[in-house]
């Protein structure tokens, strides 16, 4: 029984790790956002596993997952708005060319 929980937690951990790699190694804003999406997906897997296997009576767990899904959608919307504005300003959304945004 605990094996199922461990499988889910391991998946969440590995997804999170891949997301961290993606968010840190990519130079393009959209790819970085993909890394963040993977991180949030890993977190959601863990949350659902905890709800299902440890506290199935308390629906705050599912509420938290809904909030994380909302955050994913909102972050994508605002991120793409910023990407459009940036692309319109200098013609690329690469992080390597974003020195002027520093500080």
């Amino acid at each position: 029984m605990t094996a199922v929980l461990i499988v889910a937690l391991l998946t969440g951990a590995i997804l999170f790790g891949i997301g961290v790699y993606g968010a840190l190694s990519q130079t393009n804003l959209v790819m970085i956002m993909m890394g963040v999406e993977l991180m949030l997906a890993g977190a959601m897997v863990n949350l659902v596993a905890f709800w299902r296997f440890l506290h199935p009576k308390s629906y705050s767990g599912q509420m938290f997952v809904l909030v994380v899904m909302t955050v994913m959608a909102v972050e994508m919307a605002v991120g793409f708005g910023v990407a459009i504005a940036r692309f319109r300003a200098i013609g690329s959304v690469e992080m390597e060319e974003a020195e002027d945004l520093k500080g």
Partner: protein
Amino acid sequence: MGAQAFFLAVFGLAAIGFGVAVFRTSSMVRSALALLFSQTAVGCMFLVMQTEFLGVLQIMMMATEMSIMAIFMVMFMMDPGGLGGMDMTHQKRFSIGAGVVAAGAAIAVALLADWGPVTVQAPAAAMQTRELGHELLGRSMLIFETAGVTILTAMIAATAVAIPVQRLADNGDKEVSE
């Protein structure tokens, strides 16, 4: 239990496989759609863990969101087809290290912690939806309303940032800055 563990492992491997494919392929649309199928696998994991509403919601939302990501990749990337063979990464060793550390820490916690008794039975799907609705509009009403207002603010902010700035030229005509 055995079947659940098996399907969870299958969908988990699918999610991880597609997740790795996101960053290994050089075609941008393939990258976005690989992320889509990774999220779908995560949604299927939710279904296997008997949270039907969350699973269906995840599958539905991620299809649309990742398709939007696909078109933005095509709009903004230099080489959306991926046939040019460019390497679009930086600080590779640091990020691999960070990824391994993050995953390793989470795995260590998962394996070493004592999680207590694991519940075998889950509530029925219809009852879950009902209880989630009660939770959403009862105890967590403040969270629900805040999320709603946050979404509205994000919509307005994203639209405001994305529309082109309109300046007045010297002779009073509106001109759009490109």
